């Protein structure tokens, strides 16, 4: 790693998707685990968190933190965020989908993914509540917001970062009752 750090070690997370053996492998080598979730209800990953913690013990490691990593976009209101995030989400989905044989995503699918799946899109309060709820259900220690949705406008990205840091994170801490 360059430039050199001041010292000490850098925490390393291994990213995993939905393959159980990836979880077991992460535990085996004693790394922290980041669940990369881009679609569907987050609660389905709870058994993966349990698996990581159980496997870590069986391999003789103290389980390290588990994180959740999902895409999002934060705006002034729920509606404003949904409207502004739709074009970049659609463009990103179409680009990735083309290589995987998916047909183009519809607005209805997008709304469904926001309401019930793994898109953290909306006002700061809405996004904070969704993050807190997912972290609680999964019993994870960290959340990564994958911001920008590929091609979101610079001003929208700045707003997401600003609201994430100044409003969402403190609110999630408050909702979870942690410092």
């Amino acid at each position: 790693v360059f430039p050199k750090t001041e010292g000490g070690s850098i925490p390393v997370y291994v990213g995993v998707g939905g393959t159980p053996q990836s979880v077991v492998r992460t535990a085996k080598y004693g790394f922290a685990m980041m669940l990369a979730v881009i679609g569907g209800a987050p609660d389905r990953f709870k058994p993966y968190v349990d698996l990581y913690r159980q496997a870590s013990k069986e391999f003789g490691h103290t389980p390290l933190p588990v994180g959740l990593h999902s895409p999002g976009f934060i705006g002034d209101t729920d509606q404003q965020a949904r409207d502004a995030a739709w074009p970049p989400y659609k463009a990103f989905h179409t680009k990735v989908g083309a290589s995987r044989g998916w047909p183009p995503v519809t607005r209805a699918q997008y709304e469904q993914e926001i309401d019930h799946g793994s898109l953290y899109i909306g006002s700061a309060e809405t996004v904070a509540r969704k993050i807190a709820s997912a972290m609680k259900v999964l019993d994870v220690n960290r959340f990564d917001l994958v911001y920008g949705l590929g091609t979101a406008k610079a001003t929208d990205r700045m707003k997401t970062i600003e609201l994430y840091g100044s409003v969402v994170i403190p609110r999630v801490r408050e909702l979870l009752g942690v410092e």
Partner: protein
Amino acid sequence: MNTDTVVGILGAGKLGVTIAQLALAAGYTVYIAGSGDPVDIELSTKIITPGAVAVTAESAVKRADIVMLALPLGRFGDLGSELFHGKLVIDGMNHWREVDGPLEAIIADGTTTSEAVQRHLVGAHVIKALNHMGYHHLRDEAKPAGASGRKAIAVAGDDEPSVQRVNQFVNRLGFDPLYIGGLRDSHVLESGQPAFGANVPLIQLQKLIKK
């Protein structure tokens, strides 16, 4: 009368695990096999799919009334075809270039992937099903028969009694089965087609198939 009670799943990845969860919830006995030693997946099976039993691929096929293929498409040629004689086999596999390499390298030109699987597994009854919906949708969308907004799963196959058995399996898992024709016709379910990725009720799936 359909008496299928045991499901043998080949592939302990995303799809295999999801089908195992749905089949267990529907009351089936489930055996699951990964690509390696069953011991390797014992812990993950115990926690992710409690109730399922990790076994070798050979054992999963032998014990199963219904065999589910949930391994990378590029690997089906490794399956010993004699094991599958007389078996009902559901092909849920899709071509993923990143994993399987170019399609032309594994499937003869003008053939559907499921026809190729059937040709390899001579003597088995291969039915294509459970391939078009993403695994996370399969997990989230399963609903009891008659539930409003229930989603549909397309089924393609050449052997009528086998199709009926798969229809019932799909129904018990939590989806409306939609018969769309023989294996020859199953290209409409492959990647790049309008119905690929479909997570919709029956009427809408019919429309996507016709496109």
